[in-house]
């Protein structure tokens, strides 16, 4: 049960973003820009960064949601599963592997990112902007994961829920839906 009363039809982060809309707004804008804005990294690649960090933080809700979004954007479910086991054997570019390794270091601590991690990324063609955005996406998911679990929000167990949420993230991104989320109430068991 969450540590504070949250809307029952909105599990995980979704209820928190409705509970505190004023703080949600800049978080949504930042996420939309970092994950969907113009970039030389694809939205799928950026969702992989969100997924690996959430996985390392053992945040069930965020991991499942961003895995679902990444699966849809990439077009398969193997990439995420392989990445969670071993970045080196993941079917992504060598540049992407070095960026995912930087993200894993950021999850531990900002100070865990070494010159060698950065040099490896640059040697594989990563630009300063790509390195910057990778670090900031990883840091942002350290916020999300702590927010979601620190408030003890509910993580639904049905895979179907995350498939729907992943689809919403692909279709609508991270901005608040113009008409809010009351339409989701009908899906709740009474």
């Amino acid at each position, binding site marked *: 049960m969450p540590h504070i009363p949250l809307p029952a039809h909105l599990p995980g982060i979704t209820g928190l973003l409705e509970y505190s809309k004023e703080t949600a707004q800049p978080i949504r804008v930042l996420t939309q820009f970092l994950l969907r804005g113009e970039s030389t990294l694809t939205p799928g690649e950026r969702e992989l960064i969100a997924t690996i960090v959430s996985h390392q933080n053992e945040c069930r809700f965020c991991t499942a949601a961003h895995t679902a979004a990444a699966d849809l954007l990439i077009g398969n479910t193997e990439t995420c599963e392989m990445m969670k086991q071993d970045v080196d054997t993941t079917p992504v570019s060598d540049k992407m592997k070095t960026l995912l390794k930087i993200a894993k270091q950021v999850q531990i601590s900002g100070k865990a990112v070494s010159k060698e991690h950065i040099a490896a990324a640059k040697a594989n063609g990563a630009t300063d902007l790509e390195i910057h955005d990778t670090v900031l996406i990883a840091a942002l998911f350290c916020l999300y994961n702590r*927010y979601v679990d620190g408030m003890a929000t509910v993580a639904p167990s049905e895979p179907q829920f995350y498939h729907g949420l992943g689809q919403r993230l692909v279709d609508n991104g991270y901005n608040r839906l113009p008409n809010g989320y009351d339409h989701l109430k009908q899906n709740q068991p009474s």
Partner: protein
Amino acid sequence: MAHISLPDESLPGIVGLFNFRPETAEPLRLLADTLLRGESTLTSGERELIAAYVSHLNNCHFCHTSHAAAAMAHLECDLSLIDDIKQDFKKIEITPKLRALLNIAAKVQKSGKDVRNEDVEAARAEGATDHEIHHSVLIAAAFSMFNRYVDGLGTWAPQENEAYREMGQRMAFQGYVRRDVVGS
């Protein structure tokens, strides 16, 4: 030197990063301003103490010292009391409620999962409201982001507390949103 080429290497910590990427700077500034200076039953001084404490636990010198300096400005304390934050608040007078909220923030710094019902109940027993518990968790989570951003890109930071005096006053009394950009 930072891990990436910043347009102005003289700007320390997150300031140099804001200058590098204005598109992300704007929501990051607004988030800091809303959390630390927006409407809340926790004073800005109390919220800056939470930010400074989490940044200390994350060993992020720039964020720790700058937010500690902002807290000192709010609380009208001498800059020398900054180091008391690292000593678990032996000299700075804090309420039992804030102490309970700092305990929650320290758990969040490690992992969201470390926050136990007992931690939350202890804060409630000292009078903490839902909003105050929410805000403390989100400030701690946000600084787990800011600290990683600042250190993950290898930015530099002035060493001495004194170097943060003016910055702290600016953060406390002018805030985090660039008024020339926002236009107010």
